[in-house]
């Protein structure tokens, strides 16, 4: 573990490195002094891993290779710079997080339909859904939307908030359309699953299309989306 104190700007950095290369690097850069008794907590709260194209990773490597006040200042500047996401990117994040809940079901359903609900495949699939409660999925989707709004939409204007809420209302309608199939899967009801398969896939497709259409619309009016 290495501690760098830059007394000129009262910024400290703590670095912990594990592995032979830069596989795991933990950095805390902050103003004020470091209480060494809290080092493990500080390091754990600042863990970071990234790709070389990431400006943060680049600044981090620069600092680790040549730790001085210049590279530390550069690192602090990059860490403090918040990502500037436009509305399309924010909605893309929401779409991605929500889609994670249903994409595996869509894949399993495609597999089941392609094999005409072959018995061994069916057993494999339903085993994966034993622990899932359909109502919890809807709650989880709601929670994702709420967390998304808290995390990403604090600074958006009223009109943009209305658009995000409008998209969510449409998306939720489609989620509710998908639920009977999910209930059939978790209830191991093959007959109902077959009946609901097309309806699920149509609703999932519309669910994705809602975000795609809005993304296209936003791309066409890009100055407004910032």
């Amino acid at each position, binding site marked *: 573990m290495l501690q760098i104190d830059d007394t000129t700007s009262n910024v400290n950095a703590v670095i912990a490195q594990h592995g032979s290369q830069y*596989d795991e690097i933990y950095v805390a850069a902050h103003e004020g002094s470091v209480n060494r008794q809290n080092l493990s907590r500080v390091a754990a709260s600042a863990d970071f891993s990234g*790709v*070389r194209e990431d400006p943060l990773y680049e600044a981090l490597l620069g600092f680790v290779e040549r730790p001085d006040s210049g590279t530390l200042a550069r690192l602090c500047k990059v860490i403090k710079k918040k990502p500037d996401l436009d509305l399309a990117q924010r909605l893309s994040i929401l*779409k991605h997080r929500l889609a994670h809940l249903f*994409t595996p079901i869509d894949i399993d359903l495609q597999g089941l339909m392609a*094999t005409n609900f072959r018995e061994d495949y069916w057993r494999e699939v339903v085993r*994966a859904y034993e622990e899932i409660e359909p109502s919890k999925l809807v709650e989880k989707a709601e929670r994702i939307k709420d967390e998304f709004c808290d995390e990403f939409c604090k600074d958006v204007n009223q009109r943009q908030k209305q658009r995000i809420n409008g998209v969510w209302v449409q998306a939720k309608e489609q989620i509710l359309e998908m639920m009977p199939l999910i209930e059939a899967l978790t209830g191991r009801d093959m007959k109902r699953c077959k009946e609901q398969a097309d309806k699920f896939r149509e609703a999932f497709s519309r669910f*994705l299309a809602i975000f795609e259409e809005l993304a296209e619309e936003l791309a066409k009016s890009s100055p407004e989306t910032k």
Partner: protein
Amino acid sequence: LIVDDIVEYLHALQRALMDICDVDIAQSLEEAKNALSENTSLLLVDICLDESKPGIDRGGVEVLKWAKAHYPKIPVVMMSAYRDFDAAVECLNLGATKFLKKPIDIAELKSLVKELVK
């Protein structure tokens, strides 16, 4: 070998392809490095390997670069949920065989796997 950060997605793809091949899974570059070998016949990688940065993170490109540097003969198919033309071009320039848009069409994927693994 399929590389994606969403474990449920990996397991669903594993089930979907179980009839035609054995599927190993990895959730990160490090896991992919450990799982890849000369016996790997195909690598399927999602571009984004950090679900907190969808459309921004390109950890999958690092997997592609590493695989091409160490196992150049293994075909690599990239996947993305985003209409990212630049990423697709970059991946193809780095040696990816194909770029698939999520949600994946399983019939198309099976046909591609059969073609590349034969």
